[in-house]
């Protein structure tokens, strides 16, 4: 089993306190976060699907926790999908949500129902459109590609963690002429999405997405807290670089002792 190193014992509780403090702050006053262009395009994609009268496809990625339990990434993707559904509900757009991880099925069904309910259109929820397909990677890729072709989707939202199937989804979407917006935490797949999709949100924009879209105080506070934590990490990285450089000059044993704390 892995256990906390001295640095983790200090930094993780510190970051947790900062994030929770900023969430509580955000509930009392408005906080600002910058524009994310890829997310503004979601409304454009929803509009395109409305004009064309064709469905949208939203995935929450193709990752599964083999140890059991749901991972954070598909849950975050689901929060973005919830926003997309709320945004599309006034236009009665149909959304197809293929599910990869069977553990996500019930959560996705409830989130989709809640999204339509919140938008005042509970009748839009169609249980057949929230489908568990398979948890085999390429079987899922084949099934999603098949759905894209058969339903001729007008917009494709690819959020979550992806592996090699990312390219298959993105190129199939391109073939059927869908406007595509992707966001993933898989750094190896970001280049493929950039090459093949219309808009891509990268890195921690993925976690900022639901806050930016929904403007809910809890999520806004969380994003501001994350930014403070990143600034602290950046400071540690700069100080660490300087210290390691000094340590390499030799004769400074205290530097080595200090640097070891962060290993």
């Amino acid at each position, binding site marked *: 089993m892995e256990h906390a190193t001295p640095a983790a014992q200090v930094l993780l509780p510190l970051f947790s306190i900062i994030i929770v403090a900023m969430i509580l702050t955000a509930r009392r006053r408005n906080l600002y976060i910058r524009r994310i262009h890829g997310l503004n395009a979601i409304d454009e994609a929803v509009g395109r699907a409305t004009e064309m009268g064709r469905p949208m496809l939203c995935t929450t990625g193709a990752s599964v926790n083999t140890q059991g339990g749901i991972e954070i990434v598909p849950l975050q993707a689901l929060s973005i999908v919830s926003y997309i559904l709320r945004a599309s509900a006034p236009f009665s757009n149909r959304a197809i949500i293929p599910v990869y991880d069977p553990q996500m099925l019930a959560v996705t069904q409830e989130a989709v129902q*809640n999204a339509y309910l919140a938008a005042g259109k509970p009748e839009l929820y169609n249980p057949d459109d929230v489908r568990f397909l398979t948890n085999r990677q390429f079987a899922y890729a084949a099934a999603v590609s098949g759905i894209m072709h058969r339903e001729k989707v007008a917009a494709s939202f690819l959020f979550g963690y992806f592996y090699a199937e990312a390219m298959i989804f993105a190129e199939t979407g391109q073939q059927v002429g869908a406007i595509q917006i992707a966001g993933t935490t898989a750094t190896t797949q970001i280049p493929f999405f950039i090459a093949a999709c219309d808009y891509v949100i990268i890195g921690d924009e993925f976690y900022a997405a639901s806050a930016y879209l929904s403007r809910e105080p*809890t999520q806004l506070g969380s994003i501001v807290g994350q930014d403070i934590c990143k600034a602290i990490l950046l400071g540690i990285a700069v100080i660490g670089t300087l210290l390691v450089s000094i340590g390499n000059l030799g004769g400074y044993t205290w530097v080595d002792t200090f640097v070891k704390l962060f290993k």
Partner: protein
Amino acid sequence: MGVVLQQNPIPFLKPVLGNGLLLYLFGSLVAMVMLIAILQTVPKQFRRRIILLTTFIGGLFYALEFFLPVSSMPTPANANNKGNFLTPYVVPFGVITQIVVGWTIGLGIINLTMVHGKRLLKPKQQEAFWNSAAFFICMFLMTWFGIAYELQKNAFNDSIYKILFVGALQSLDATMFSIIAFYIVSAAYRAFRVRTLEASLLLATAFIVMLGQIALGQWLTQTFPSALRVETIRGWILDVANAAATRAIAFGLGIGSLAVALRIWLGLERGSYFDKES
């Protein structure tokens, strides 16, 4: 795995065989059905509190196990193992989540059966009917021969299982995987068209990296000084520029994961499953 299970400190979760196994299976089935039935009757608001409490206890267990001081705790599998008083319970907790996963796969199969069953009974399109029929035939064959192969290992079951799994399923997987090669070329062609400054930079970088990967590129620049050889530049692009950007992204993602995990663990999301806050 067997060694780990023998260390299971909860007697109730120790593996049993024979009639005891059947009794356990039946008992757990009844218990889970009853639990689900009780949860269904509980008002939605109260059910949400149960979910929040369960999530908090689960998260608290793993957080304490990770943060509490550790001491030497050798096991037959690992003499250098370290842990605290919660470490022996990590495996039983993992077993509980595996059981939940097993149930969710059942839910997934029910969902698939309902979606495709409707299409078989009330087909709107001819194509949809045959797709759904193919699904049921494949599911039945795979399940039947998968179980038969495990229960009775003979030449017939073995060959049918291999035809279905290795001959069909794995070959289909490989087919889908191979398609990616063509998709990459198609996407690269669109991305590398020199229309903007960014696309031009992307093209130039990709050209250098690809050239540095192959013997031809290395041969072309073999007379250059070491720092200007294509494999050196390729190495710098991958190991310095690319690695720095990837690590920066990884920092942000790590903090983002922590934030979402905290919000879910502490029940800070006010709505249920990303509802709007009231």
